[in-house]
């Protein structure tokens, strides 16, 4: 390789590296500026955050802007979050839904059901997660109760389990009957008593086996008596 070519390559690499460092520094500066916004009065911070969201900045910077919005207690901030959830795409859109959960504003939360109904699997998961964050077990219950797709039902009841909403799970059991998803949900909720009762009242051997697996995994107190009974005639 001749000397001119080597020099050209070196200059190109140095230039690329310097641009990359400059971009990183610029991004870090923007993030630091975004962080400082939390100490500013909301009326000053809000227009700046909205400008960032509408601009050409990176998704990472916009994600941080969304978090700042979630921390501003105003209708405008909530409207901006909802707008981001409706108008952005990809991870940013899902992040906007998470921020609506963090904001916990009742009116904005109501809009999540529309996003759930029209959304794909990722959006549905994001909405369920937002309900978990906002501790809105009634909304998750409604999704489970109205679910026609078994996977949707399962995801919703497991989320209720994570929220320890055992009363809602009991209601669903009454109306929909026992299912694999509900058994798992009661396990996630740590409700040993209900699982033991389900085991004793079930006439289905496969279902009993499934419940027993859960109780063994939970190291439930009553499991040894059940195993003893099950081994009775072995």
């Amino acid at each position, binding site marked *: 390789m001749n000397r001119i070519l080597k020099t050209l390559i070196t200059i190109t690499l140095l230039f690329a590296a310097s641009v990359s460092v400059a971009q990183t520094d610029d991004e870090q500066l923007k993030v630091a500026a975004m962080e400082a916004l939390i100490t500013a009065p909301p009326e000053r911070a809000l227009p700046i955050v909205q400008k960032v969201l509408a601009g050409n900045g990176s998704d990472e910077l916009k994600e941080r802007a969304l978090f700042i919005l979630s*921390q501003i207690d105003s209708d405008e901030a909530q409207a901006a979050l909802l707008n981001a959830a409706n108008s952005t795409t990809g991870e940013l859109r899902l992040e906007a839904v998470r921020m609506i*959960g*963090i904001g916990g504003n009742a009116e904005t939360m109501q809009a999540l059901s529309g996003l759930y109904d029209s959304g794909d699997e990722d959006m549905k998961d994001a909405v369920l997660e937002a309900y978990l*964050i906002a501790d809105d077990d009634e909304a998750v219950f409604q999704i489970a109760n109205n679910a026609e797709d078994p996977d949707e039902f399962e995801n919703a009841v497991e989320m209720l389990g994570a929220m320890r909403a055992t009363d809602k799970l009991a209601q669903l059991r009454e109306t929909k009957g026992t299912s694999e998803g509900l058994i798992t949900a009661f*396990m*996630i909720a740590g409700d040993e008593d209900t699982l033991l009762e389900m085991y004793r009242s079930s006439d289905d*051997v496969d279902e009993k086996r499934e419940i027993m697996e859960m109780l*063994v995994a939970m190291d439930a107190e009553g499991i040894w008596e059940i195993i003893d009974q099950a081994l009775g005639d072995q």
Partner: protein
Amino acid sequence: MNEDNDKLSAEQLQQIKDATRAAPPPHVVARWHDAIDSAAEREAIAARPKPQSFSPSSFFWGAAITAAVAFGVAIGVFIGNDKPVMTETYANVEAAPQAQPASAFSRGLQVHFQQSRQDLTRLDNTVNGERAELVMNIVQQNRLFARMAKQNDSEDLARVLRAFEPVLLRLSSEDITPEEAERLRSQLAFELDIVLTKLSQRASDRTDAIET
């Protein structure tokens, strides 16, 4: 009850044994050990040292304390199993002197956020299962503080704390790409910084109000 249905075949029992041998998913493990680690963390909040640099021995002591508390909690659970463990935790929090809860909670929360922030910076230096273990430790503490925030009528803080958990669980996953891990870690660090700043402001406002 149908007695025949209580008796499972040897094959079915073997299937159960096989199923229980398989490692459960991390979030399920976390859920089971929630109460135990919550109790351990309650101890830690009361006397948590200043954040220190990472030391492998911290895992040993963490495990030792957890084991000791687990033994104590287990006795409580198996002797008097009519109340969830967390209810006892709440009872202890509520039984603290009236003047302490809000400020003690706030201070404990600040330490938790600072510690979590520091733990996040250590993630890059972890290998194999260490990252999952480190993240799950943060998750355990996070759950405790989320419940305490709710108890202290700090619903806004409780929501933020609950929001950290799904991100932390994603971070603990072994199949995540380094780029995705870095994106999640930096976003989480940013959120922790913001909440820490807000908490400091609140504390400062309270101090001003007392002084005036």
